[in-house]
């Protein structure tokens, strides 16, 4: 018997074939996978969680702050919570790109021949993304504090704002997860960022208070989901959140998750099996 053959015998006889993994077990495996993958891309991660947040916060505070609010200090108080929403919104596109890349490479077919709960592939990947979002948010908050941002609701305000924005990112991620599953090309996902996300970001109240806008425009801008999230984050950090602000933001977020998560799973299951 050759050595390869004896090794093969050994491998074939080793260990009982386990039962179908529990859904949580499968999610944990994908969290682990994304984590290992993230560690290998640390240089990209550094750009997203350190460099971009710093550059944008500095640009908006110092270049536009004076023009918009008459002073950088006052503007930062208004801007920072919205900046948190801005930061994660532009990052949610990565989940779509990640899913699309898996589908394009053969590894998707391998996943589909394994007997685990298939949505775990998307959920596990998303959970690690949330960690990335959180890192970017912490960078933004710390830099903001260094520049003079003072949350009126103190540490509780900062924490509740942070948790709220991460939750917002999680809900919004389902939109891009869905686009990632149905997109024909990776490029079409990236172009969605420019066609949909950036116009929405700049027609929101992230940078400018709606009270400074024409009467007909203000209410429209205020109903942009990004505005709703920014208003809620601002309210939480400064302790001025009304029940209505929070409820409308959470309702819109819930709609995103409840509509796009099932659509994503359905499209994912059907992918390639039409």
């Amino acid at each position, binding site marked *: 018997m050759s050595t390869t053959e004896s090794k093969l015998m050994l491998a074939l006889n080793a260990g009982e074939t386990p039962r179908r993994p529990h859904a949580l077990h499968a999610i944990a495996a994908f969290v682990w996978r994304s984590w290992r993958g993230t560690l290998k891309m640390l240089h990209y991660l550094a750009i997203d969680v350190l460099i971009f947040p710093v550059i944008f916060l500095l640009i908006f505070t110092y270049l536009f702050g004076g023009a918009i609010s008459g002073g950088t200090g006052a503007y930062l108080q208004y801007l920072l919570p919205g900046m948190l929403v801005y930061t994660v919104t532009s990052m949610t596109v990565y989940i779509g790109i990640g899913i699309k890349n898996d589908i394009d490479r053969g590894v998707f*077919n391998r996943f589909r021949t394994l007997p685990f709960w298939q949505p775990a592939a998307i959920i596990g990947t998303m959970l690690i993304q949330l960690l990335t979002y959180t890192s970017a948010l912490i960078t933004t908050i710390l830099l903001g504090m260094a520049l003079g941002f003072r949350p009126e609701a103190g540490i509780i305000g900062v924490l509740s704002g942070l948790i709220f924005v991460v939750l917002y990112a999680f809900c919004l991620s389902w939109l891009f997860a869905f686009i990632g599953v149905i997109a024909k090309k990776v490029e079409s996902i990236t172009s969605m960022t420019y066609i949909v996300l950036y116009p929405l970001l700049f027609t929101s109240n992230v940078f400018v208070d709606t009270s400074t806008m024409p009467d007909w425009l203000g209410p429209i801008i205020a109903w942009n989901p990004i505005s709703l999230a920014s208003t809620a984050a601002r309210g939480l950090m400064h302790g001025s959140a009304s029940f209505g602000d929070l409820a409308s933001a959470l309702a819109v977020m819930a709609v995103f998750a409840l509509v796009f998560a099932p659509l994503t799973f359905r499209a994912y299951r059907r992918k*390639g099996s039409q």
Partner: protein
Amino acid sequence: MERIRYAIEARGIQKSFGGTEVLKGIDLQVERGTVYALLGPNGAGKTTLVHILSTLLRPDGGEARVFGLDVVQSSDAVRRHIGLTGQFAAVDESLSGRENLMLFSRLLGYRKRDAAARAEEWLDVFGLSDAAGKQAGTYSGGMRRRLDIAAAMLVKPELLFLDEPTTGLDPRSRNEVWDIVRLLTERGTTVLLTTQYLEEADRLSDRIAVIHEGVVIAEGTPAELKASVGSGTVRVQLARKEQRGDAAMAMRQVLGAAARQDADPAVLTAPALDPKLAARLLLELSQAGIEVEQFSLGQPSLDEVFLSLTGQKNEVLFESKEVQSS
């Protein structure tokens, strides 16, 4: 599981993509413990058929069972028994070889420590232990294919699908893959492989289905397929290749069929319907003063079988060409 004779039973499998009929009613029976080859050129529908049998695609019509389990109704149960390697290695290129096998083990339900143990065992079987820590994206084609087969073996499949396992591999890597397939079948694994290389089907498989444009046009053992063409082949190796024109003329006269030139310019082959004609040819050649180094009468090659079945020339499948009489 009770003993079921057939690893795969498929009846009338149909599949269309956007109005194009890719599979037009395929029947297939693969006996447990055998190697079965789906042979056909690119676009014949081999991969589509494999994807249906391995639960990745739903058929539009017909039904397929793997170890008696319906591939549509009981896809999860089927997945417990099968391993799949695709034309493009299905591994995560950003992870190392070890991490890939650990991930797939965990998705099979192994606990973390067991998953690590399984990964090491299979890396060792496929000679990948030294490269275990390197990113799979940096692997050579042969290494990636071995990693892919290792990933498919983690489930200890009773049925392994190998979709063009050696396409794009150098001869050495190809031989390694062949050795692996032989070893697995000795251990009782049923293998369904697709290939466009006749040599591969001939060497590895117990039975072959020739697929052409979504239909099985012939099925049988390699020997049966060759016999179905109905003639043997005379192979003449000349001492001096300059004499091939004369030799070809003699072959045409005696055998009544045109001689083909092999890749080797000193070798000519021609179909011989009757062994007696071959004997007469040998006599004729020596009388004409043509020096023959080797002379053999054998079964036709699968290339000839394929050509006679499809009536079509295909560059990849067929390398020899007819001798130009000078």
